[in-house]
C-alpha cells in the first residue's frame, strides 16, 4: 500500500483497506500520542500548518502530532500578518511553502481549496478542512474512535442534529458505508440529511432510517453521533429557538440506552449534550478529541513515508 507523498484530500479517495491501514498505524502510535513512549520518526521533518481560518482543535492536534513524533511545526500565524494580505494567491503560497516544509496541512474557507493546493504543491497536502466540503482527518478520527470504543463492522449508528450542513456526518456516512453500517438519521425536518446522500446509501444497500426523535431510537443503536444545531444556518432566529433544544442527550434519555452505547460529538457542543452525561460511561467525546492526535500522527508519518 503506497502512502508516501500521497495527498489526503477527501475520504472518497481511500478504499476500505487503506482506511484500515491508517487506523492500524494510529493504534500502533497511540502510546506515543499519550506521551508514554518517545518517537523520533519525524526527526528533521518540517510540517507547515497553513490555517486560513481559526480551528483550535485541528491545528493544535496537528501540532501535538508533529511534536510527539519529533518533528517541527511551522505555523502561518494570523492571516492578517501574512502575504495573503498583500494579495498573494493561494497557489503561489502553496508553491513557496512547498520549498520550506516536507508536508502542508491546509485549512481554508473556500470549497475545493485543498484539491487545488495539491495541484500546486511539491510536497504532500493534508486537508485540515476546506469550506464546507471535506474534513477527512475528522472522519478518520471518528472512525478510529468508533473502532476503539465500539466496533466498525455492521455497526448500528444514529447521527443526530444538523445533518443538512454538517460536513463531518456526510463524510462519515460514506466511510461507514464501506463497513456495512446501519444508519439512523435524527434531525428536525429543516435539517435532514441531503436526499442525494440518502439515495446513494440506499443504492449501496445500506439500511437507512430517518426520524426526528432521539427517544424513538435510543434503545436500538450502539453509537450516537451528535452534532451541533448551528444557529448561523437559520435565517429566522425564532426557527432556531424552536429546534435548538429539541435534540438533547440527557441522563434521562440514556436510561433507555444500550449499556454499551457510546456518545460521540465532534465538539464544540452547545446544548445538545447535557453536562450530566460527561460522567457516564457513554460519554466518548473528549477521548474522541484525543484520538485526533494518533490519527494525525499516522497520516503525517504515512504521507511523509517514514512509516509504510
Amino acid at each position, binding site marked *: 500500500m503506497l502512502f508516501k507523498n500521497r495527498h489526503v484530500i477527501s475520504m472518497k479517495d481511500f478504499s476500505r483497506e487503506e482506511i484500515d491501514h491508517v487506523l492500524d498505524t494510529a493504534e500502533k502510535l497511540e502510546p506515543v500520542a499519550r506521551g508514554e513512549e518517545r518517537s523520533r520518526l519525524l526527526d528533521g521533518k518540517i510540517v507547515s500548518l497553513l490555517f486560513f481560518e481559526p480551528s483550535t482543535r485541528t491545528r493544535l492536534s496537528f501540532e501535538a502530532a508533529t511534536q510527539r513524533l519529533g518533528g517541527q511545526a511551522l505555523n502561518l500565524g494570523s492571516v492578517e500578518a501574512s502575504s495573503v494580505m498583500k494579495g498573494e494567491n493561494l497557489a503561489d503560497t502553496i508553491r513557496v511553502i512547498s520549498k520550506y516544509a516536507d508536508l502542508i496541512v491546509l485549512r481554508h474557507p473556500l470549497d475545493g*481549496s485543498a484539491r*487545488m493546493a495539491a495541484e500546486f504543491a511539491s510536497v504532500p497536502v493534508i486537508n485540515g478542512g476546506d469550506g464546507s466540503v471535506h474534513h477527512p482527518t475528522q472522519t478518520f478520527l471518528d472512525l478510529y474512535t468508533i473502532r476503539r470504543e465500539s466496533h466498525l463492522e455492521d455497526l448500528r449508528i444514529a447521527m443526530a442534529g444538523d445533518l443538512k450542513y454538517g460536513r463531518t456526518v456526510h463524510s462519515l456516512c460514506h466511510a461507514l458505508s464501506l463497513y456495512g453500517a446501519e444508519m439512523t438519521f435524527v434531525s428536525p425536518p429543516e435539517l435532514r440529511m441531503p436526499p442525494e446522500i440518502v439515495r446513494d446509501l440506499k443504492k449501496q444497500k445500506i439500511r437507512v432510517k430517518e426520524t426526528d426523535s432521539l427517544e424513538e431510537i435510543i434503545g436500538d443503536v450502539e453509537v450516537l453521533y451528535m452534532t451541533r444545531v448551528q444557529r448561523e444556518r437559520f435565517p429566522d432566529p425564532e426557527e432556531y429557538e424552536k429546534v435548538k433544544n429539541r435534540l438533547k442527550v440527557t441522563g434521562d434519555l440514556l436510561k433507555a440506552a444500550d449499556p454499551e452505547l457510546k456518545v460521540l460529538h465532534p465538539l464544540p457542543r452547545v446544548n445538545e449534550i447535557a453536562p450530566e452525561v460527561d460522567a457516564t460511561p457513554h460519554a466518548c467525546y473528549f477521548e474522541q478529541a484525543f484520538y485526533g492526535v494518533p490519527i494525525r500522527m499516522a497520516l503525517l508519518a504515512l504521507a511523509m513515508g517514514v512509516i509504510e
Partner: protein
Amino acid sequence: MKEKRDLKIQAIENGTVIDHITAGQALNVLRILRISSAFRATVSFVMNAPGARGKKDVVKIEGKELSVEELNRIALISPKATINIIRDFEVVQKNKVVLPSYVEGVVRCMNSNCISNSSEPIKSKFSVLRTEEEGVSLHCLYCEHVISEEIAENLL
C-alpha cells in the same frame, strides 16, 4: 419547397456544419466553441428551422474544421447534434457528438464558494456523467458541486 428551405443557409465549400442542434441552443453552441466577434471565419446559423424530427438549430462555419474535442463539448447542451465536415461541397465525414468524460474551462461552477470561482490561476474542471434518470450532469472536481439542469446558463 425544398429549394426555399435550403436558401436559409447556403451550402459551404469547406468547413464544418453542426446540424440537429436542440432548438434554441445555437447561440450557446457558439459560446461553447468560443466563437465570438474576434472569430475570423464566416459563421451562419439558423434557429428553430423545421426538420423531419421537429425544430432544430444549425450552425455552419466556413473554411474551418474544428477539432473533435471542441465539437464534442456541444453534447453537454445538445446531445443529438451531428457534425459534418465539408470539403469541396461534399460531406466527407458525418458524426454524432460524443459526450466527453471531462471538461475544463467550459462551464462555471455554480457554487459561489468554490475555489474555481476565485482569482486563483486555475480553470474549472468537471467530470461528466450521464444517467438514465438525471441526464447529463457535471461534477466539479474541486468542490464536488453537481450541475445538471443549468449547464447552458453557466457556460463560460
